């Protein structure tokens, strides 16, 4: 459980940092860049979450569904 909890903090940290970068870029007047940054951050976090989901579904499959 110890290693995996890091993922929570990583996701929260990425979220806060992305929000900061978004604000800064917006202040500089680069609206479209800010949106791209948000999108890329979202994709990175999505990858982490999807890997977790994959682990979980594999576990459930091996325990409940005998595959």
């Amino acid at each position, binding site marked *: *459980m110890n290693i*995996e*909890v890091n*993922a*929570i*903090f990583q*996701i*929260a940290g*990425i*979220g*806060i940092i*992305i*929000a900061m970068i*978004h*604000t800064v870029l917006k202040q500089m007047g680069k609206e479209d860049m800010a949106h791209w940054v*948000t999108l890329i*951050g*979202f994709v990175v*976090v*999505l990858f*982490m*979450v999807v890997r*977790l*989901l994959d*682990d*979980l*579904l594999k*576990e*459930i*499959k091996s*325990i*409940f*569904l*005998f595959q």
Partner: protein
Amino acid sequence: MEIIQVVGLGIIATVLILIVKEQKPLFAFLLALATSLLIFLFLIGKIGNVISMLEDLAENSGVQIIYLKTVLKIIGIAYIAEMGAQIVRDAGQESIASKIELAGKVLILVLAVPIIGIIIETVLKLLPA
């Protein structure tokens, strides 16, 4: 005392979600998803122990393996469907959540059909001709 770990993880994740939600609701949703996945992942090992004990018990008492398999599959479908529906409901999509639940119910029913057939056959055998 693993329950303390789980509760602590939940509280910390909730605080983080509240912080992130103001800036980026999308990240808050992903954070909630990751938290629930982690807790589930932590629980699934424990559930596995219980299930293996159940398997031993069924083997010793001579229950046909097909029944236990079906029941376990139904439990697995129920867990997955419930988790998915709750996550989607958290994101505010009530209609998709109810469709996921409907899909879970239908799939469980499909799995249960052979057992229902066996029950009906047994009852018919018991009835006098």
